[in-house]
């Protein structure tokens, strides 16, 4: 069948909840993902989640992923894995290529009444002399290796970036048996939650704030990392260099929304640095400026899994409502509850900026 009422692109937390909410209300849903397993980044998250205990907090990401996949099956979501959505054509046609390996050259075109783009985000790189040496990789790659494939990329690690990703992956590297020599952070203060930082501090990992990487050295692979202190203009201060003997440098320098498909559909975007860069404008139903195309999760601005789960639910409910499967009043009540929870998740000093930025997106619509 090539025609669906809803096609969801991306099976991470937001894609899964969008598909589940819609399918629960009798919408015929196709969920497409490029990976061989659904769940997106959830299967790398072996730690217990923050958030409201009413919604999955205290549960490890991997288990949330398993629960959602089971739920999706129960409500009849059709899941197509190892398929990449490579294009969006006018009239809501999704162009899908088989496999990442280029073996399958088949292209399928699926048509949909509604589309939810839940394509997530990609990691930022930083560039420094020696950065192409083997052994230098993104924190996401490290996390996939240790937690999904159970391969230790190295024994002695330097972590660049002290956001939650850098802190959590450092902790998980130690769990996997590596030694984290240091975490460095260009800003004068630690970027992530104090509790995450404390976990690795208690294990003796030093966190150098106002420090940047100067150079990676090595013959065939990285052997040394040179770091130095930076002044308030981001210039390295002479004679503050430190050298670490490492075999792996992990880069956790933030993420940016993956908006290629959004752009292809000509959805209007706005540049919001707090959310990772260019993001699609959407309304309170998560619908973009292209009628019938919705967005949810990190593609609408980099946040975390809890908010992604809620945004997916919003999109799923809105789709079911607009297709006539859900009474307007009931839908409105559910959406109001979700928005309340999102407001909670975006409160406090860490959420405030995201809350304002998200409101700006909706105002621009």
């Amino acid at each position, binding site marked *: 069948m090539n025609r669906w009422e809803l096609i969801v692109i991306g099976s991470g937390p937001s894609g899964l909840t969008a598909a589940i909410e819609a399918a629960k209300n009798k919408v015929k849903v196709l969920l497409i993902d490029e990976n061989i397993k659904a769940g997106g980044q959830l299967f790398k998250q072996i*730690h217990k989640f923050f958030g409201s*205990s009413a919604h999955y*907090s205290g549960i490890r990401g991997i288990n949330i992923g398993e629960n959602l996949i089971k739920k999706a099956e129960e409500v009849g979501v059709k899941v197509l894995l190892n398929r990449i959505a490579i294009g969006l054509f006018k009239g809501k046609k999704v162009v899908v290529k088989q496999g990442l390996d280029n073996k399958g050259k088949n292209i399928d075109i699926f048509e949909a009444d509604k589309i939810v783009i839940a394509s997530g985000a990609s990691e930022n790189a930083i560039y420094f002399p020696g950065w192409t040496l083997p052994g230098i990789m993104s924190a996401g790659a490290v996390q996939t290796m240790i937690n999904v494939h159970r391969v230790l990329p190295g024994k002695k690690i330097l972590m660049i970036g002290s956001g939650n990703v850098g802190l959590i992956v450092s902790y998980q590297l130690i769990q996997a048996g590596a030694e984290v020599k240091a975490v460095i952070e260009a800003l004068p203060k630690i970027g992530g939650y104090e509790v995450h930082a404390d976990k690795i501090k208690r*294990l003796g990992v030093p966190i150098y704030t106002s420090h940047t990487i100067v150079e990676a050295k090595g013959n065939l692979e990285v052997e040394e990392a040179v770091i130095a202190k930076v002044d308030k203009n981001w210039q390295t201060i002479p004679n503050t260099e430190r050298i670490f003997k490492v075999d792996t440098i992990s880069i956790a320098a933030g993420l940016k929304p993956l908006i290629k498909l959004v752009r292809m559909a000509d959805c209007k975007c706005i540049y919001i640095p707090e959310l990772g860069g260019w993001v699609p404008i959407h309304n309170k139903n998560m619908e973009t400026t292209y009628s019938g195309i919705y967005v949810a999760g990190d593609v609408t601005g980099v946040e975390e899994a809890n908010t992604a789960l809620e945004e997916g639910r919003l999109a799923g409910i809105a789709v079911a409502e607009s297709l006539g499967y859900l009474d307007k009043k009931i839908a409105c009540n559910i959406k109001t509850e979700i928005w309340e929870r999102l407001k909670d998740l975006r*409160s406090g000093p*860490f959420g405030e900026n995201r809350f304002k930025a998200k409101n700006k997106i909706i105002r621009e619509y």
Partner: protein
Amino acid sequence: MEKNIRKNHEQKNHKNIRAIIECYEEIPCDPCEIACKYGAIIIGKPITNIPVLDMEKCTGCGLCIANCPGLAIFVVCENYTDTLGTVSLPFEFLPLPKKGQRVKTLNRNGQYVCRGEVVKVIETKSFDRTPVVTIAIPRNKVDEVRGIEIPKR
């Protein structure tokens, strides 16, 4: 941070065993509130409130330790024996220490504090792979010890 830690320790309950919640930032998180059977941990609304411990209600049972996603809760007993106190802490590493084992204890910065003896290791299903290890240490070290060295594999 230092100020918060001091404030935390100035308040003791009459039983000399209690949870110490080292969670000082307004982050959206509340599993500890639900985990406590005695209603001793209060967050309320909004979810970003900092958890507050009701000293009178806290029994030092330690259910909150493994339920805190931030691994930020410890249970401290001041009078395990005449000379020893205990600290119970979450420990998510292998190998898991065994009861009776001598371990090196660490402070909040991972620096060596003193030797300690493991007196209890609890790993239940509800702890979901966050075992809780209780170590006996000299009484005057209970406010300092927050970790143990990971045994060599």
